[in-house]
């Protein structure tokens, strides 16, 4: 073995290289846990525009998705919970009320399952969630086995930006506590998968039983605090 595979990049600029205007970005995290803040900052600095962002939350006023919103970088948000306690003053609220951003509101479990569907090479699935509600509008309702379900379609990203705990050069990832959340599924659902990690470790350090995201799903790894 030559050890020719190396997912590690040393600068944030390298980590986001090739991501263009108009990209669909799957952004990891639930609340403040699992958001790759360094990658978020790099995308803000790169000034990318016209982004479609898939994120469970809509930004909290911290230097998270909020800075893309404030910078006018986001055309459309696909999200389960765009509100935050800072809502009344948040960029999302302003943009939304001004009709300057498109919102696709998706129940959280449907959001993650649509990404899993994409990552698993499936064409769609039927869920009971949302039947008979305003979020069923425009969706196929189908009775299967005596129960009504909505047809939901896969949600692919051009890029996934994730926060993980440890990584090795093959791209294997572990996560830290509830910062795991959307990471493992988003890693399956995007053409380019970039993880920001606490620590880069030597090959063989990670227990094969405890690897959560196998390296086959990961393209680039950057360590928190790497230079721009």
């Amino acid at each position, binding site marked *: 073995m030559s050890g020719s595979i190396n997912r590690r990049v040393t600068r944030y600029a390298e980590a986001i290289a090739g991501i263009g205007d108009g990209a669909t970005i799957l952004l990891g995290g639930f609340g403040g846990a699992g958001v790759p803040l360094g990658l978020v900052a790099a995308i803000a600095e790169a000034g990318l525009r016209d982004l479609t962002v898939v994120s*469970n939350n809509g930004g909290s006023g911290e230097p998270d998705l909020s800075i893309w919103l404030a910078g006018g970088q986001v055309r459309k948000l696909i999200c*389960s919970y*765009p509100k935050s306690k800072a809502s009344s003053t948040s960029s*999302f609220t302003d943009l939304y009320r001004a009709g300057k951003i498109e919102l696709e509101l998706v129940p959280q479990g449907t959001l993650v*399952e649509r990404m899993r569907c994409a990552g698993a090479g499936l064409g769609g699935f039927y*869920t*009971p969630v949302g039947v008979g509600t305003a979020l069923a509008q425009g969706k196929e309702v189908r009775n299967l086995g005596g129960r009504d379900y909505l047809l939901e379609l896969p949600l692919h990203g051009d890029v996934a930006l994730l926060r993980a705990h440890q990584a090795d050069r093959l791209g294997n990832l572990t996560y830290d*506590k*509830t*910062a795991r959340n959307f990471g493992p599924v988003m890693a399956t659902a995007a053409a380019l998968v970039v993880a920001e990690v606490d620590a880069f470790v030597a090959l063989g350090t990670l227990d094969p039983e405890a690897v959560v995201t196998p390296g086959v799903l990961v393209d680039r790894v950057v360590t928190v605090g790497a230079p721009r």
Partner: protein
Amino acid sequence: MTPLTRDQIARRVARALPDGSFVNLGIGLPDLVPNHIPADREIILHSENGILHLGPRPPAGQEDWNLINAGKQPVTIRPGGSYFDSALSFAIMRGGHLDISVLGAFQVSGDGDLANWSTGAADDIPAVGGAMDLAVGAREIWVMMEHSSRQGQPRIVRRCTYPLTARAVVTRIFTNLAVLVRTEAGLVVEEIIPGLTLAALQQQTDAPLLAGTQAGRGLAPLEG
């Protein structure tokens, strides 16, 4: 005749959780339940963001912001707890693996329809989070809420006027005035605060009520 306080409602709910049950507590009023779980009962709490067996908030200064609950507040994990991703977390919720999901609500209908995610107001920022997922799948869906709105409007209604979260899901309602169970026959009042008559309760309730006694069940005093 004294309506229960919010903490007393939480205490009543906590007493109703069977020993050994796996439970998801929604945000809002259900947040108060853990403080009241009897010491001799083992209840395993689940949170949608991927954790089982949550413990209480850690002391100030010991918060770990990678260890939070669905309300984005710092928590702890108890021995025997586990972490998992959002896909498995929602499979646990939607797949019927939790015994009980305890939710706050704006309105509940006599048919068990639930409205708890949107006021429907024009300037409301729509946000659903895991509300619709939580309302579908657990073996029992319990609601805890004030019996009437701040404006004095009944919250237990014939038909929800707020946007629905899910249809025909709520099995039990705990309010500051009563405990109600949904049956084939309709909403049955099982407990009522001492001094309040069923007729007076019905006046504050839009959906028709049956007394526990009518349904062959006792009508017990509600204690917080």
